[in-house]
């Protein structure tokens, strides 16, 4: 998966504090500052929606696994980014295995449900350049 918001913000701080060699000024510096500004705009979106997207995704995967008779997965242990991502990693691993099983069995109904869930998962994590 892509980096979590705390990583993005840490990275921005590091990038802003890192001294650049003299040849890395001018257009390169302008491009770098522009990228950092773009990342700040995306971080604002993620700050608003990121945790909710993770809570929703974990719940949606858990519900699909229960319906599909998948193995139980530990519940979320907190609402921090790291706790939700750890739970999400466990759930996604099981989801991958359940999807592979559905393909091997030729269970087209479950496959279709999983493919629809993938679209919803990707949409829930959508970032929009220039706002949103």
């Amino acid at each position, binding site marked *: *998966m892509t*980096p979590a918001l705390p*990583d993005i913000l840490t990275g921005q701080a590091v990038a802003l504090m890192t001294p650049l*060699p003299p040849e890395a000024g001018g*257009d390169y510096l302008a491009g770098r500052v522009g990228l950092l500004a773009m990342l700040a705009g995306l971080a604002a979106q993620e700050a608003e929606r990121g945790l909710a997207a993770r809570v929703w995704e974990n719940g949606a995967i858990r519900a699909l696994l229960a319906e599909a008779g998948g193995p139980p997965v530990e519940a979320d242990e907190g609402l921090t980014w790291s706790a939700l991502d750890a739970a*999400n990693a466990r759930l996604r691993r099981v989801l991958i295995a359940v999807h592979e099983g559905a*393909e091997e069995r030729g269970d*087209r109904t479950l496959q279709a449900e999983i493919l629809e869930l993938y679209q919803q998962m*990707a949409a829930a994590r959508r970032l929009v350049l220039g706002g949103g």
Partner: protein
Amino acid sequence: MTLAERLAAYLTRTGAPTTVENLARISGGASRETYRYDAVVDDVRAGFILRRDPPGSLIETDRRAEFLAIRSFAGKGVAAPEVIALEEDGAELERPFFIMRRVDGGMTASPFAPDPFGPHAGAIGDQFFSFMGRITAEPLDGLPILEALAPPAPDACWRRELDYWAGVIDADEQHPQPIVRAAIRRLRRHPPPPAARVSVVHGDYRTGNFLHDGAGRIVAVLDWEMAHLGDPLEDLAWAMDPLWSNPADPRISGMVARDEALAIWSRTSSLEIDPDALAWWSLFASVKGQAIWTSSAKEWRDGGFTEPILAFSGWYTARRQDEILAERLAAMGPL
């Protein structure tokens, strides 16, 4: 010594007494450090580009293959820059590098900009897909790139590329990615037909990787670092991945409509396009993209968070690619 002084020392040792002026880093892809500079010899000034390996690299690419790929297309009508020198051991610059002649007066277009070419969109699109077709049409015999790479068998192209990029995901993934995993399984279960022709594949042929003069002319095709030999549909599909187009604009990268793009490429490459093969390579393009963004996120973390372009690629671009993959898989339906 500064980088400019070390570069001047190298140029003086290998050629004539040289002064390096106006050395400045420019944005030039995440897998090489790219600099522009002026070399002054006997009061004669000329512009050059230095491409040096970074301390860590987004994609492990062969700079010799890149150098020879560009050289393979010198004077072949595809706007390949003129390469000058290659130093694989790094010489005075400590890391491998090569030098090419600078093309002044060009600009790049952001893949994310609306209407990036304005009234010149059609002309740019015609050249963009024609140049790609000419790269495909170029016979391999005698090309310099053969000094670095051996052509794969036509029926081996897909597997070699899929194995490589799936391996990149295996190596660099920091969080389970069910969407791209499903795409990889689908590609393995339904391989494409053998390549209609084995040709040079640029590897990253897309908007953002060429210079245009703002008046409808492409003046340089850049970023050959992933060049290899393979199925030319790989380039065609990569260039048309929705990632490189504004979702609100039906044209490919703000240039021309999809059907027109395919017609231009087919005419200039002299190849018919097999729809099933193109569909396979289109899904593969999104897998390859996700592999690159996965590496980008890892490199950003491992490199100490210093390069914001890696964060952008590993975060925004990766999520957009996941949306594209999920849409493609849903449209294809269950296996």
